[in-house]
């Protein structure tokens, strides 16, 4: 089922000035409910503009954005409702922390929703658990935390709003491998448990292979490809043409297949290829 549908959307920056630039050009795509979709593409491909359209921060120059089948701009005065339902975490959100304690920073959004103190407390504790931080940090100043911890506090602030759709722009950028796994693993667990729709902007084909169900590839202000991870990965030449590399492990598996070692099934992660090799050995032993 579609959670968000983009239909024929164009977006033009500085329209009617000499700086006019078409950042999106007749884009149509959809994001399935309860699934994790990776939005991938180069700097300048239009993906950040698309992200800003999803929760009504930008209004399309042409075309429509539907949330649960309803045009989000049908009643422009109600657009704040859409922003509550679609939570957006920008790049490097740790620069947006501002409050005195981690607790009050995470509680800021729920407080503005007019919730009572008990409900706010529940949501703050739930959100910090999902991003994998200890409750002991709640009383600290966010500015005493490490970069990776700050990032998680910022994400927890959006989770505490309990949005139906969560959009994250490069949530793991600049983190070490463990930090990446903890953030992306925690988010995946959260959306699976709650049936939330997750849209992940990423440059990493490895992350896309490990965490996502579907993929939308943007190129030159248009949707270049969309489909399941399997479908998109089955077009390596097209991916290469937009500067997206097939994961190293997939290339390795393809090399084995060319050498006559017939591996079957998905071959996008180290675990996939390990299992395929073990199946191959098992098959030959019989």
């Amino acid at each position, binding site marked *: 089922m579609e959670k968000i549908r983009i239909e024929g959307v164009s977006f033009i920056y500085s329209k009617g000035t000499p700086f006019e630039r078409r950042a999106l050009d007749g884009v149509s795509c959809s994001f399935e409910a309860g699934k994790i979709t990776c939005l991938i593409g*180069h*700097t*300048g491909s239009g993906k950040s503009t698309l992200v800003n359209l999803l929760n009504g921060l930008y209004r399309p120059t042409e075309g429509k954005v539907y949330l649960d089948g309803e045009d989000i701009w049908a009643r422009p005065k109600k657009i704040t409702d859409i922003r509550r339902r679609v939570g957006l975490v920008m790049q490097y959100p740790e620069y947006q922390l501002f409050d005195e304690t981690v607790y009050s920073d995470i509680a800021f959004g729920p407080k503005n929703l007019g919730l009572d103190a008990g409900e706010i407390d529940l949501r703050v504790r739930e959100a910090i658990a999902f991003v994998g931080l200890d409750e002991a940090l709640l009383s600290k*100043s966010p500015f*005493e935390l*490490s*970069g*990776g911890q700050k990032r998680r506090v910022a994400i927890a602030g959006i989770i505490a709003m309990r949005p139906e759709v969560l959009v994250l722009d490069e949530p793991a*950028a*600049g*983190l*070490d*491998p*463990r*930090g990446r796994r903890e953030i992306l693993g925690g988010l995946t667990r959260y959306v699976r448990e709650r049936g939330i729709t997750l849209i992940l902007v990423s*440059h990493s084909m*490895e992350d896309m292979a490990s965490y996502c169900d579907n993929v939308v590839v943007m190129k030159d202000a248009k949707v270049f490809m969309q489909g399941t991870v399997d479908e998109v990965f089955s077009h390596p030449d097209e991916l290469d043409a937009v*500067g*997206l*590399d097939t*994961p*190293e*492990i997939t*290339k*390795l598996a393809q*090399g*084995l297949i060319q*050498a006559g*070692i017939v591996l079957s099934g998905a071959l996008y992660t*180290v*675990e996939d*290829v*390990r299992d395929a*090799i*073990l199946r*191959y*050995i098992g098959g030959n032993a019989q």
Partner: protein
Amino acid sequence: MNDYFIRCENLSYIYEDTGESAIPVFHPALDGVSLNISRGEYLAILGHNGSGKSTLAKLISMILTPKSGKIYIDGTDITDETLGEDAQYELRRRVGMVFQNPDNQLVATVVEEDVAFGPENLGIPSDEIRKRVDDALSLVGMQDYKRHAPHKLSGGQKQRVAIAGIIAMHPDIIIFDEATAMLDPIGRRDVLAIMERLNREDGITVINITHYMDEAARADRIVVINDGKTLLDGTPDEVFSNVPLLHEVGLEAPQSAELIHALREAGLVINSNAITPEGCRDLLIRLLSGGDR
């Protein structure tokens, strides 16, 4: 052996955090690290966030001064407090550093003025500056942008301009502190290619501090820092054969090395290691066609 280009002896550094409380809190960042680097070496430093690797870089580039221990660059003790101002300037010229965030490194409103900023401060004659700026910009492939405004460039382009600004100082050593972390794949590839060309063709000693294992695998040598200490020091083959230890300290190996480790865990007997997809493919072909079993 006294002829190492960079010699770090028993370095320690402690961050003092006075914060809001009256009693200072001490965070040891480096704890007795010794490290020798040869002239022209291409070294990668790995470690999780907070491991102390950036502190080490800041000590070598004289941004910080060690609490104890010595650093020698080309035989000069850079921690010597009696070092004159001229000698300090000269050392800072010789050790360049490129940081993670491209937006924090550019100072001027025109690309070529930004690149000229360092040489101008060295008091170099203007025709020589002109030449250095042009050479540096063409080396990073940004000559066509010399009159552009830096803030309108992409992250990768900004980072290339920042590198040109360092190159124009004619340094002997360049430290890249997670310089590719905020870039997209194309920006990353460009910066890495420049890094390697400076090392191979111009003999510049390159230290690449990174979270990307595939970048580290390309270096001559890898040093892994953990909890302020040197954990591993060796060739990429040697370092990446310690997969369980790397996992323990929050790191990974390149996917090829991870695959071999995972197959061993599943009970296969594999006697050699590989860290590149080509090496791993050949090893697995031998293994699966019965040659190595």
